[in-house]
């Protein structure tokens, strides 16, 4: 095998042809193609939900494609298990590295392929020596005997890279490897990527940050809505063009947004600051308005919202509701003031799995359905019936465990639970993430209806069409700060993406 490409146009070592993958209600990948070349970095770009993670899972043997072919050096291969992917020389480095905290660095590097003595025992001396020389060759300041859990995230990445080198991987997938790294650490990672390139590895680099992509990638492939829409050489494209290819829509989803004229200001947030997660967040929210919060994962949107709901503690700033101070001390306090929050993590934070539907809906309203602290089941059932009918809930009975419902219907229960408290402000965090199309449309229609009735809605979403289709106004957050604010009339997908990613200048 040649260590470096001989010709100017090297042949791809891994290629995917017409690969499709469907999940109930969603076609995650639709006949996509992808080529990876030895000694080159291919950047995979696309919005959230474009199918990038599904592709990574197929390449690492976690998902099986429904159709299509994967070829390694022109020969078709199959990757039925994660181990099969490793055997074919495909390895992945994830955002949060999947290694073993309690094992040593050397053990992590050689887990599953440790050097053996003649009688089949692990040759610890050779294992340590080889790990040590690998790390030295990478210039990594890590001792092979250290426990993995004592390393920084950046150094854990280095261990993952060392592991990739040790199994003589030919294809290295990097799934947002820089998300948790500092600038200096990112630079060090880029040096390593150059090393891997020199070594003839084919690298698939996934990132939302355009400056990084332009810094390391040789080629690009753009995914949108599960389809491959473009690919080519980095030197032939620009940031503006990439963004355009990413967001250009083939099918426009129709959003049921009603036109409303927002009324008086209800909620005012001034200079809200958290020691690490967000800083100087200020905005107004008006009656009947849907305010969208857009940004990359980790921009601090969820933390800001949870601060308004009394879960995250703030270090500075004020919140006023109807002119009165309203910085929530805890969720119970927030609910009392009329600020409610539909969390992103539905299964863990939203629905109380194990309790029946009607008890979930009545849970924050018990004070109103009960008499002097004693439960009144008929009142609870009536309340649950009212909101489940309004939200068009699909369930067999109101005493059914909420955990037996589909994700979309669970979300309806969580929303219903809050509406039953008659809130002033409802915060929805990724309200349609992971729910089927039908429920999605129902949730959107309902949000619009609520706003028209005078409720204030804050919607955190990473899905551009949803943000653009539903919001009256959009605030974009980046690295814990507000990076821009746009009116419905001034909304433009490219501007939003550029603001969220921090791309300066360049007209769209």
């Amino acid at each position: 095998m040649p260590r470096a490409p001989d010709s100017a146009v090297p042949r791809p070592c891994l290629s995917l042809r017409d690969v499709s993958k469907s999940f109930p209600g969603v076609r995650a990948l639709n006949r996509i193609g992808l080529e990876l070349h030895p000694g080159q970095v291919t950047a995979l770009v696309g919005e959230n939900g474009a199918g990038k993670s599904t592709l990574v899972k197929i390449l690492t043997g976690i998902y099986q494609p429904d159709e299509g072919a994967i070829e390694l050096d022109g020969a078709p291969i199959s990757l039925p298990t994660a181990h099969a992917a490793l055997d074919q020389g495909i390895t992945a480095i994830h955002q949060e590295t999947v290694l073993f905290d309690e094992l040593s660095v050397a053990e992590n590097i050689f887990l599953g392929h440790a050097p053996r003595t003649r009688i089949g025992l692990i040759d610890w001396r050779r294992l340590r020596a080889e790990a040590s020389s690998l790390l030295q060759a990478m210039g990594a300041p890590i001792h092979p005997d250290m426990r993995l859990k004592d390393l920084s995230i950046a150094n854990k990445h280095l261990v993952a890279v060392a592991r990739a080198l040790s199994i003589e991987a030919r294809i290295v997938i990097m799934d947002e490897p820089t998300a948790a790294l500092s600038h200096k650490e990112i630079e060090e990672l880029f040096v390593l990527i150059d090393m891997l390139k020199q070594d003839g590895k084919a690298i698939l680099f996934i990132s939302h940050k355009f400056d990084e992509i332009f810094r390391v990638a040789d080629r690009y492939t753009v995914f949108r809505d599960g389809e491959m829409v473009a690919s080519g050489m980095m030197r032939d494209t620009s940031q503006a063009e990439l963004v355009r290819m990413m967001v250009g829509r083939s099918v426009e989803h129709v959003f049921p947004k009603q036109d409303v004229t927002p009324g008086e200001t209800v909620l005012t947030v001034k200079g809200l600051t958290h020691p690490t997660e967000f800083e100087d967040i200020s905005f107004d929210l008006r009656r009947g308005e849907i305010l969208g919060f857009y940004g990359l994962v980790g921009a601090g949107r969820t933390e800001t919202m949870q601060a308004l709901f009394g879960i995250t503690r703030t270090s500075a700033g004020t919140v006023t509701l109807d002119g009165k101070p309203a910085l929530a001390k805890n969720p119970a306090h927030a609910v009392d003031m009329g600020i409610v929050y539909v969390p992103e993590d539905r299964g863990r934070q939203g629905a109380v799995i194990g309790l029946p539907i009607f008890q979930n809906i009545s849970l924050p309203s018990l004070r109103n359905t009960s008499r002097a602290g004693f439960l009144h089941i008929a009142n609870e059932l009536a309340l649950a019936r009212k909101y489940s009918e309004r939200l068009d809930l699909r369930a067999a009975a109101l005493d059914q465990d909420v955990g037996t419902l589909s994700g979309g219907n669970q979300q309806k229960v969580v929303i219903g639970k809050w509406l039953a408290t008659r809130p002033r402000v409802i915060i929805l965090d990724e309200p349609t993430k992971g729910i089927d199309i039908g429920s999605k449309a129902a949730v959107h229609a309902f949000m619009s209806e609520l706003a028209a009735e005078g409720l204030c809605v804050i919607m955190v979403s990473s899905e551009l069409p949803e943000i653009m289709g539903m919001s009256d106004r959009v605030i974009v957050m980046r690295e814990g700060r507000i990076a821009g604010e746009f009116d419905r009339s001034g909304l433009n997908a490219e501007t939003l993406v550029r603001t969220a990613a921090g791309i300066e200048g360049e007209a769209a």
Partner: protein
Amino acid sequence: MTQIPHISRAIPDRLESPLATALKSWEMLLIVVAIAIFIANSLASPYFLNPWSLSDATFNFTEKAIIALAMAMVIISGEIDLSVASIIALASTAMGFALQFGADAPTLAAIGILVGIACGAFNGLLVSGLGLPSIVVTIGTMSLFRGISYIVLGDQAFRGYPRDFAWFGQGYVWWVVSFEIVLFLALAIVFYVLLHRTNFGRAVFAIGNNPLAAQFSGIRIRRVKFVLFVLTGLTAGIASVLLTARLGSTRPSIASGWELEIVTMVVLGGVSILGGSGSIAGVVIAAFIMGLVTFGLGLLNVPGIVMSIFVGVMLIVVIALPVVARRLRERRAV
């Protein structure tokens, strides 16, 4: 897109009638087991079916059962309190100490109950205030509370409780009906209402099923948990009064090992050890089952060691039974 006419699809309140649910419940199974043991006992010993011996039988479980009522709520909330037996020892020691200064019966009882509440509040502060895991906290206070009793008493014992104090543990309200059993049944009703009929009880179930979602629903988790530990402390204080009055003395080893019997009673009663489900009715029936079994074996002169083996086997069998039944049903369905 064609417009689908809106059809109102009423969702029923319940999948099946409350009676059908009750017939299939764990409590119903426990009642069947209790009746079977009752019949077996009456066949095995001619002395069993006597009002006075049946009344005697209740004394060996009522004190534990009173604590089991509060323990059931703590376990449903996803926590546990292993310090209850040591709270009995400390409360009893406090009463014995007060006795030296000539306290009368009502004062002694009040001291026992207050010490129980204070111990429970201490556990509650550590668990809900500092957010420590309750299993660790109460293993710690288990040693702490009983350790204090040992320091105060050494190898001595407090004796000489007044005659009217003894009534709490030995007295009869009417004919064969003891004060202890009346108190237990009254508390069972109070705890039934508290767990199954109040907002507080609903919060306990919500926390036990999903503490994070309960918090995100505006439930004050820490407050609820604090109250729960005060309740186990309170019931342990009451049990301490009853037991001390029944024995007429305080030794530092009083009630040792009870915490495990109480947890066994709660689990046998159908409370999930993982939290989130269970009922007071189940715990009450389980208390009677354990009383019947130990008393029946006692009538047959079975030694104590064998009794504990029997209780252990019974616990495993009763827990395994529904699992085995489901497996058999599945196998038949295939």
